[in-house]
């Protein structure tokens, strides 16, 4: 088989890994020459470009873990009899949200406080601190405590966030988690890690309005005005594709398609973004409109930055991996580049190496010396 192909392609030197090494960026000047002379080279380039547009469907390890949890619990009970190693602590704390998960199929109000609980007991993804104290507590007690807490957090949540209109339907993501939400009109919102989205399903026909805290990528269907309310300002569109980053004192909006209107919280400043433009509202003040620094691509498993403060870069790393980043001072320097969202060590390297920072991964902490 291999030989056939080589004959077809008339490859010099019988190179049966050339294309592979090309993709890995591992070619010598001679190899590159050979590649350019390779039959079908432009087609390979085109093929790979088209491939970039394909994405895997959504899979959440966090959800998968929660599903696996009750089954492990059962195994554990059986193992205990056989005097084998047991699952304690984390397992027991997590069984609470896991059970809730199954009763609340559609994420509705109940999930808002529930997600809050998850955040408290389980900073979710990858390396996390095991709460050793919880191992002492017995399971039932924890379940009761969690239920009480759930109520309390729920009340606090809805009373303190009135102005933020998380109304009857809310979604929340944990560290390292992305979630795709389909709105009643068919518009699709992809939530980045540690983000919240809420809207009133009942009032949907009167106006398409959602509230956001965090980052999300919107594909809004054409129709009546679509509004994204954030604490840092609001975004209005008719039907288009755009990304909203609303965290802390910053609101950043990127317009990928169509037109997007951005308004500051006091509604004193307003800007209309066209496709390929972005704008930032910082502490309520509209900044200069700019060309799109890069097309939002975090939902492809990478976090990309252009002249971003290290604070924002490491903040994103904390959210993607559920880790804590410790640094005395990050200074004023900015970072342009990206990191992967599925390999902490690699991600740290991708930021720290070019910035010449001395970084160290210790379990669920990243220390910057």
């Amino acid at each position, binding site marked *: *088989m*291999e030989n056939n*192909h080589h004959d*077809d*392609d008339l490859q010099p030197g019988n190179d*049966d*890994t*050339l*294309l*592979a*090494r090309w*993709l*890995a960026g591992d070619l010598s000047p001679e190899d590159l020459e050979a590649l350019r002379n390779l039959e*079908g080279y432009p*087609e*390979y380039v*085109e*093929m790979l470009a*088209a*491939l970039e*547009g*394909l*994405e*895997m*469907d*959504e*899979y959440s*390890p966090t959800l*998968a*873990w929660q*599903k*696996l949890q009750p*089954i*492990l619990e059962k*195994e554990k009970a059986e193992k205990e009899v056989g005097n*084998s*190693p*047991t*699952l*304690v*602590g*984390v*397992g027991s704390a997590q069984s609470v949200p896991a059970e809730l998960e199954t009763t609340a199929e559609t994420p509705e109000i109940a999930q808002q406080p529930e997600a809050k609980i998850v955040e408290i007991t389980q900073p979710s*993804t*990858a*390396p*996390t601190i*095991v709460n*050793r104290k919880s*191992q002492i507590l017995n399971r039932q007690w924890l379940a009761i405590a969690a239920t009480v807490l759930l109520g309390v957090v729920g009340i606090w949540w809805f009373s303190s966030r009135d102005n933020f209109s998380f109304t009857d339907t809310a979604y929340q993501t944990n560290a390292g988690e992305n979630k795709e939400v389909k709105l009643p009109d068919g518009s*699709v919102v992809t939530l980045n890690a540690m983000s919240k989205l809420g809207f009133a399903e009942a009032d949907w026909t009167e106006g398409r309005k959602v509230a956001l805290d965090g980052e999300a990528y919107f*594909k809004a*269907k*054409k129709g009546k005005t679509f509004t994204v309310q954030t604490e840092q300002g609001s975004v209005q569109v008719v039907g288009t*594709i755009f990304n909203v980053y609303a965290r802390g004192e910053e609101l950043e909006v990127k317009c990928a*398609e*169509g037109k997007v209107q951005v308004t500051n919280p006091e509604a004193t400043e307003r800007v209309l973004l066209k*496709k390929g433009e972005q704008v930032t509202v910082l502490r309520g003040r509209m900044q200069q409109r700019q060309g799109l620094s890069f097309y939002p691509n975090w939902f492809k*498993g990478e976090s990309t930055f252009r002249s971003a403060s290290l604070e924002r870069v490491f903040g994103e790393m904390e959210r993607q991996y559920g880790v804590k980043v410790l640094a005395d001072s990050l200074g004023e320097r900015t970072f342009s580049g990206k990191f992967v969202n*599925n390999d902490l060590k690699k991600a740290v390297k991708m930021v720290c190496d070019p910035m010449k920072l001395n970084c160290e991964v210790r379990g669920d902490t990243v220390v910057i010396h």
Partner: protein
Amino acid sequence: MDSLPINNVCHEPTYRELFYAHARHVRNFLCYKGANATEADDLAQEAFLRLWRDCAKVPFEKAKGYLFAVAGNLFLDEKKHEQVVLCFQRQATTEEASNDENPHFDLETKELQDRLEKAIAQLPEKQRVVFLMNRMDKMKYAEIAAYLDLSVKAVEKRMHLALVELRQILKGI
């Protein structure tokens, strides 16, 4: 139970870390082999369950190889897979995005993507798995080699061949 060393797979936090490190890869690997999304989810879960049952027997360094081997076998045991279903996201919004103000993401690209999907489904399984692990999961050849218990050279060959093959298949679609 706390006395277990952290590199022991039976140590619960270690096991959990393994889960978070490899669950997505194991699950996607099953998709690349030809499982649909639900099958892939279920079989990946089953593979991890087996790992837990065998935790005392599987050394930490062998855990990911174990997971892939088990997942692969589980997939074989499943009913026949006449048709390869790839777990790609359906990009429903692209058509409407392409009808105005969007000349760069044109119908041609969309069409090529559709053909590409069909072509990938027709690739021989071994090539498809390596190809997609590299392209979709962004894994280095050395990582893929470790997961699949192959030499890096073998992975590179499959990768190269996958591209050659894809181009040939595309011509006929």
